């Protein structure tokens, strides 16, 4: 049993921020959400959140939060709390059994983490919440580099940019995540279509892709 005070209560030991629902969709407890805007309400920063990538297929390098043990009602503007998970927090996941040190992440169109996606490291053993959903302790570790594939149908010439699909999954059997990003080819090689490469964010928010295949 956890007593309610600043020292001993797990909930009290986390850094919670105030969030509000950006759409009229119920956000269940322990959901991964994406920040879409911020406002200042009652002199406090409030983050508007929604389901990850629900509105677009854009890949997000960060801006994810994990909501607390409360649900956020299905009303635009309904409020709750969420955390960046720099200190481990319980997050919902979709399927399978998370193992320690695996990396799971937000997936297009769902509130749950999915295996092989990016950003959150598994730091504990999974359990079941009172509502019957699967939750596991995770910690935000960020995204340094992602596997991408040029599926534009045309090569991305050197010193040019083009859209690449983000691929996730088991090494050698990766699949299209449904998310994409625009990569700048700073190599001296033309990036042929259907070829894999790596993409990372450098120079502020610019994304550079490096073809791994020719």
């Amino acid at each position, binding site marked *: *049993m956890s007593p*309610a005070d600043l020292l001993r*209560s797990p*909930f009290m030991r986390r850094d919670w921020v*105030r969030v509000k629902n950006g759409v009229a969709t119920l956000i269940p407890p322990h959901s991964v959400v994406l920040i879409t805007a911020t406002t200042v309400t009652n002199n406090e920063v409030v983050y508007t959140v929604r389901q990850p990538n629900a509105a677009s297929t854009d890949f997000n390098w960060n801006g994810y939060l994990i909501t607390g043990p*409360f*649900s956020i*009602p299905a009303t635009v*503007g309904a409020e709750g*709390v969420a955390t960046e998970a720099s200190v481990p927090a319980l997050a919902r996941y979709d399927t399978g059994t998370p193992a320690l040190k695996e990396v799971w992440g937000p997936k297009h169109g769902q509130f749950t983490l999915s295996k092989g996606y990016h950003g959150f490291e598994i730091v504990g053993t999974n359990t079941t919440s009172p509502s019957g959903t699967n939750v596991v302790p995770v910690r935000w570790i960020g995204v340094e580099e992602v596997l991408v594939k040029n599926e534009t149908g045309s090569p991305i010439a050197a010193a040019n940019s083009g859209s690449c699909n983000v691929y996730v999954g088991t090494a050698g059997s990766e699949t299209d995540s449904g998310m994409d990003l625009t990569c700048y080819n700073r190599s001296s090689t033309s990036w042929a279509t259907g070829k894999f490469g790596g993409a990372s964010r450098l120079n502020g928010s610019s994304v550079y892709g490096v073809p791994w295949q020719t």
Partner: protein
Amino acid sequence: MTTQASVSFTGISNIRQVRFPFSRGVLPSQGVIYCPPVDGLDAGGTLTFSFGGNSFSFQDCAISSCHLVRHYDGLHPIWMVCFKDRRWRWKQKTVSGDWNRRLSDGTVDPATQLTPAGLAQQILTALGEGSYDTSQMPTGVYPRCLWQDERADIALQRLCDYVGCEVVLNPRTNAVEIWPLGSGSTTSTGAGELVPKYRHVPRVNVPSQVRVVCGPSVYQSQLQLTATARNYSNGQERKLADWEGMPSGGITTESPISFPNISSNNLRAIAFEEYLRLFHVTAQKGGGLAVPNCPTAITSTEQYVLSDTLLETYTDGWGFKKNLPCYVEGDFWAYSDIATNVSNQRYTGEFKTLLDRRSVQFPFPMLKLSSSGAYGEPTLYLVTSYKVKDANGQFSGLTREGAVSGSGGTLVLKRPEIFSIYSNSTSPGAQTNTEAQATAEADQYVSIFQQKYSRTTASEITYPGLLSGSLDGNICQITWEYSVNHLARTMVCEGDELDVSALSSQERRRNLGSEGQL
């Protein structure tokens, strides 16, 4: 031939006349010696009466004043020397002690327990008395005594009054005796008395009933807590569902951390202070207002007079018993990682009791979460001890009564140190009902005072000569008179001090009262 009587007093010669009314109590009795005046009189010591070959003495007497009484012809003045018996020394003595402290369950703390006899012995030792008899003092009662440099004689009188006794100085043994009032011998008749025994019944002094009024009973049970908040418009406290600031979505959807749907600054301020943080006692656990084992009709929780401690105690590292604090228990979300509510658990965080408001306030919102994470009001109970008042503001407590043969109404004896407790605690060793013990002690006081008034008659009788005798619980005054010109006599009073030439017991008590002590 008339048997010769004589009187002597250390340091005084040519005694012409002596009158000594001798009474019970802690104050010294005062007598008068008439003798020729002598310059520089500094007498004191033993007063001795002798008659018919027998004698009895009063040791360690002292002079209190001397007054010249002039003869009608202005010649041959006589000295009226006033003296007091050895109880004059008692005024200077003090006593300290802390006895018969009551624990929160009404029982006497064994570390401080003393019977009335034991208490009297403490005082008599402080008075410097080495020989005394307290064996007849009542048992089964434990008067609360907290003496802090108290005048010992007044402490003794107060104790005796409380337990229906009186202090007697026995001239035969020079010892102090404490007698229960109403007990003792009666004056004999048919012994050649000068004035026969005339009895009367002073009805004004005899009640028809004795009533012992104990202290308020103390109850302990689980008290249901309901979330409330104040209306800003009229300052009235309301259940949360009826609160004027409650958003239309109700408790389930309003975040108790940020209140996004409460726009009024005043209501937001109240929300941050009270919404799911302020809980009011509204009933007993399970519903209803009736207090288990309490005969008082309860129509409102305003009749509960809450304390913030339990009846249970613990013994600290220095051997002192301290009351445990009250606590909250129930079903609530304990600020854990998961939306799981504890069930029937003790809340171990901070909270504040607002006793006059019969409320509890928490520093964080107390809530329950549904399995889907929606907010809800928790089920909470305050476990604490409390007293109960009736509709007239009278505390509920034990009273015990007994009939006395008089017609002077009810004598009310307040014994606030006696009280009963009623608790549904399941803590190991906790008392749950002390009514039997409290009733027994109160009944003992009834018996004590029934005995005090068991003899309703008062009387006086006068015998020839200076007769040795002692006071007791019935015989309350003996007056010895000696004169060179008249027959010596002994007047004995039962039931009341009837010697009009002496200060009455009521006046002596008024004197003590004027000293601010009794």
